[in-house]
């Protein structure tokens, strides 16, 4: 066995040179590449983090904006609801007023129409009553009826106040209204009964008016003494109108 110290030194020198060379051409470049890639990765991660933070901030801002929009929407909806309620109330009150006006007009029209109808009916009823009275009168003995009316006339004259009787006596012309022209005897009898009731002599002017139906009436310029079915029917119709 022999140990070559020159060989040992040369191999040591070779190893040192190899360590130096590999450090320059292998270990450092690869380590630098790793460091560059790690730095690039860190940069990318940082950028990604910054982007994520920015996205989070944008999301938070958007969320806040959405909350604001929702609040504004609720406010607008509430205002719209209030406005709609106000419009509804106005429309209701206006419609109510219009309905009241229409109903009042309708009521007025109905009342007017009812009045018109009632007047028409009264008129018809009056005409009907006159027709009925005429037919009834046609079935009764005319002298008896007229005699009864003459008695009613004298009674009415008797019931007049003295002042009215005096005015009647003082009248220049006194018409005695008859439904039919009486005979001369009847005129005499009537004149006599009236004068007796008045207590004074008056000249009667006999006037025929079929509208009286039955009865006698005294008329002067300022005085009328109704005593006929026409007057009675008119009084009844007046009472009926008042009763309505």
């Amino acid at each position, binding site marked *: *066995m*022999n*140990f*070559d110290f*020159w*060989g*040992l*030194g*040369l*191999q*040591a020198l*070779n*190893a*040192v*040179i*190899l*360590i*130096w*060379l*590999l*450090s320059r*051409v*292998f*270990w*450092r*470049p*690869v*380590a*630098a*590449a*790793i460091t*560059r*890639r790690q730095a*690039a990765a860190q940069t990318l991660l940082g950028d990604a983090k910054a982007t994520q933070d920015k996205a989070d901030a944008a999301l938070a801002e958007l969320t806040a904006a959405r909350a604001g929009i929702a609040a504004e929407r609720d406010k607008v909806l509430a205002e719209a609801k209030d406005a709609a309620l106000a419009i509804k109330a106005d429309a209701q009150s206006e419609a109510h007023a219009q309905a009241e006006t229409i109903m009042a007009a309708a009521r007025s029209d109905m009342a007017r129409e009812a009045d018109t109808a009632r007047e028409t009916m009264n008129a018809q009823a009056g005409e009907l009553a006159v027709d009925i009275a005429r037919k009834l009168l046609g079935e009764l003995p005319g002298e008896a009826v007229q005699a009864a009316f003459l008695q009613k006339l004298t009674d009415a004259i008797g019931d007049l106040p003295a002042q009215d009787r005096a005015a009647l006596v003082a009248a220049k012309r006194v018409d005695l209204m008859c439904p039919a022209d009486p005979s001369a005897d009847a005129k005499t009898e009537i004149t006599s009964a009236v004068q007796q009731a008045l207590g004074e002599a008056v000249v009667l002017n006999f006037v025929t008016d079929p509208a009286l139906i039955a009865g006698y009436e005294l008329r002067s310029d300022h005085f009328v003494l109704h005593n006929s079915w026409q007057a009675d029917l008119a009084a009844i119709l007046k009472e009926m109108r008042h009763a309505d």
Partner: protein
Amino acid sequence: MNSPLESAALFYIGPVAITQAIVMTWVIMAVLVIGAYLLTRRLSLHPSKRQVALELLVDTLDTQIRETTGAAPAPYRGFIGTLFVFILVANWSSLIPGVEPPTAKLETDAALAALVFFSVIWFGVRGAGVGGYLRSFAMPNPVMIPLNMLESVTRVFSMFVRLFGNVMSGVFVIGIVASLAGLLVPIPLMALDLLTGLVQAYIFAVLAMVFIAATVEEGAHGPADPDPETSLQKKDS
């Protein structure tokens, strides 16, 4: 068959005998340097598969150094990594017919062990100062100074002998078997020699790292809290 302890000179450069181991070392150096240059020419931020493989190798080495020393791997990467790669390639060069690995020779292993010895001093002084490095011999107490000094020599000597013994024995056994049983019989032994070469390269590199880390740590902070893995490796050594 020649004695594995003998080295025949191929030629001489002055007084220096150039043996096959030295020539093979130069060849391995050329292959490694040129290969490393070619492999690292186009490193980019968008790595190819080749670059990824290189980065995986370097990152694994950095992780090993970081877990062993607890320090940044950059100062030790070149030395430890080159030791590992050179010893591995040298060990596996035995697979080439007619080639005797440089690590099967005493001078090569002794040179590597000597480099480890001086690197411990270099990194110890650089990391903890001269005082710190010298103080590392007084750990855990000054009584241990002679033993620690002796250990600093014997541990690298053991590395040298272990590497030489394993590689040389493998080559020697394969040579004997091949001379006796032909070409195919030594194949299992050659496969075993591959594993042995890898393990020895790993052990040599890790032990060098442990010695350097222990010296730097003890010089800087006193006795290091032994890491279980590190203690196990020390025990193996």
